[in-house]
């Protein structure tokens, strides 16, 4: 497979590999793909109160293109607002890495991973806000929230 220099660079020296605390309320976790497909990406974001992505981490089970796509994704979303990050298109990732046609789906998965992380963050935040809005019955709300906010993964 003839890979571009940028792709190889991301593969050899991936950026932002690691894990953020899933239970941290400012962290959103996206987990997409499936082992049966040979591609699994976990992308996590830490979001500031202003809605800016302060930090991002990823781990990927997949080929060189998948690893490079997710590495690039974490690099791009850092410093962006979650709305800006949600606007990142797979075609941009594919172009940046010069992905061969048969590997385009890796960039699609990376886009999905970003969106999945954002959605998870938003869901957790909404649940927290709901909790804060009704402090009267904190005990029952808390158990309801922890049930409702369980991430899809």
């Amino acid at each position, binding site marked *: *497979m003839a*890979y571009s220099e940028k792709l190889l660079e991301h*593969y050899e020296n*991936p950026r932002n*590999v690691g*894990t953020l605390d899933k239970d941290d309320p400012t962290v959103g976790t996206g*987990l*997409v*793909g*499936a*082992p*049966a*497909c*040979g*591609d*699994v*990406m*976990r992308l996590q974001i830490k979001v500031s109160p202003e809605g800016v992505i302060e930090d991002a981490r990823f*781990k*990927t*089970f*997949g*080929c*060189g*293109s*998948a*690893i490079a796509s997710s590495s690039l994704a974490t690099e791009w979303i850092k410093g962006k607002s979650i709305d800006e990050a949600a606007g990142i298109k797979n075609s941009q990732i594919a172009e940046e890495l010069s992905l061969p046609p*048969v*590997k385009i*789906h890796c960039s*699609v*998965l990376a886009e*999905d991973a970003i969106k*999945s992380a954002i959605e998870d963050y938003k869901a957790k935040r909404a649940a927290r806000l709901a909790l804060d809005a009704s402090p009267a019955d904190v005990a029952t709300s808390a158990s309801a929230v922890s049930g409702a906010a369980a991430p*899809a*993964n």
Partner: protein
Amino acid sequence: MALKFPIYMDNHATTPLDKRVLEAMLPYFTQDFGNAASRTHAYGWHAEAAVEDAREVIADYIGAESGKEIVFTSGATESDNLAIKGVAEYYKGKGNHIITTTIEHKAVLDSCKRLEKEGYTVTYVNAGPDGLVNPADIEAAITDKTILVSVMLANNEVGTIQPIGEIGAITRKRGVLFHCDAVQGFGKTPFDVRTMNVDLASLTAHKIYGPKGVGALYVRRSKPRVRLVAQMDGGGHERGNRSGTLNVPGIVGFAKAVSIFKQEGVAEAERIRGLRDRLHNAISKELDSVFLNGHPEKRLPGNLNLSFSFVEGEGLMMAIKDVAVSSGSACTSASLEPSYVLRSMGLDEELAHSSIRFGLGRFNTEEEVDYVAELVIGKVKRLRELSPLYEMHQQGIDIKSIQWAAH
């Protein structure tokens, strides 16, 4: 001794020419370059003599009765096509059912698919999880319309050696012709068409340190006499079985490669098995969650097909780019489908994606094996650090219990 990169460990795909084979071939390009079918001059006679000698060498090695039973072709793909389509066409008055396995080479499977389009029925028997075909399953599939059974001697992906002798005994008893694609096993595991009751066998030169572009089909001439409809029409070469000017240098090289196996094959198999086991042991000692695909003993001496859980095959191959190997991962196939052989063995898809096939051969050394073992161990560890699945495994999460949102 300095290592030469990339280190070649893909001998199931092809092999380099042995220098002795190259030497044997050279005179036939510019000196004895005659067409073996030219009856009227010495150039032709020399070429013909070389071909006839080659026939005898190959026939003798596989236990055939005579060189007349060897039909030279352009390679095993052509031999497979000739055997399957040639037999099907000739015997279609007798029946229209063929039995083969799901782990055969594409040359066999696609030939069968073509026959299905023409009205034949084909039963594809599954291999078990250890990559072995059960002779009882073949027997159970035989009907009074069955005209051919085709089972490979050894599988190219997992190296498993099939029970050809047992299957041959069954087909002989039931009066059905038996074709064996012997490409991967030839020279590396015992193969005798007489004792194993094989009626047709596909052979190729380029997996035994011979040249590409030449192969043969063994066609039994007595008890029973096997007939075929030729697939290549023309000058009637090879007793009408396969027209086309013979690749004399290729045939000479093929026979030389075979005679080297006759002299050195048994000792070589043991040496290569030792190297393969050394590689396997070194890797297993350092890494957890590594699985051997295919039967541990009934496999070719040079084959090591391993699944490295939590790491994807193409990603790993990129990491060990100094080593030439192949993978059963979908990412390495043009169709994005993981290896059909591993799937038909019932292997978990995730493990199919994580598989690497090492094919050791004549020219691999202990030094290379040690280098590769260390490289693989290091890279797998690195990729596992990048893998969310490995992290989950370490935390004791059962990956199979997760609902994946596949796209």
